């Protein structure tokens, strides 16, 4: 029987950035940090891709939505597009 190719060879372990760095707080006013967690189109990047833990993803989600409300982040599109 042929061996299955080792798929996992080059996948890097994804870790939660907020767990790793305790100083990094989730704040809806901190647009620079939140920008890292939305796609170019302004969508929230899912947990399975970015690797944040459930607790932080939940808080992050809330923060992004609040930032959208007050026009720090776009609802869609990069900005005004």
């Amino acid at each position, binding site marked *: 029987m042929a061996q299955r190719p080792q798929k996992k060879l080059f996948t890097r372990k994804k870790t939660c950035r907020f767990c790793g760095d305790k*100083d990094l*707080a*989730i*704040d*809806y*006013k901190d647009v620079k940090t939140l920008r890292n967690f939305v796609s170019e189109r302004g969508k929230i990047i899912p947990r399975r891709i970015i690797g944040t833990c459930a607790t932080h993803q939940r*808080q992050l989600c*809330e923060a992004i939505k*609040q930032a*959208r*409300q*007050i*026009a*720090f*982040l*776009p*609802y869609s*599109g990069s*900005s*005004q597009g």
Partner: protein
Amino acid sequence: MRRYETIFILRPSAGEEEINRIVGSTTQIILDEKGSIIELNKWGMKKLAYLIKKESLGYYIFCDFAGTPDAVAEIERKFRIDDLVLKYMTIKTAGSITEEEIQLAITAVSEKATAVADGEDDDTESEHLVEDEHEEDTDEE
């Protein structure tokens, strides 16, 4: 007494006088309801992420205060009437706050202000936000 954060966006055409009038009336409402202001900050002109009432720029004002729900309702009522206010958002950051905690927060804010004046340093603000994260809710129009 609860702790709130309010951000409101004014039209870019608003003059100095009008900005002061709105800020003045807002603070007056908070003080009338026996609340106290922890931080009041004019962030100034910023680019909006999307158009609001056909404006692409907005004058941001941030206010952190301890007050009653009645005060918030009154402030938001005023904002809705005022044509200069493009958008506002109030967030509850703490369900209850005592007199000492208010004083502590005020000193923390003033320390931060001096630290910022000395150099680039804004990591002091993160402390109070972490503990209250799960309690916050949004009041929207």
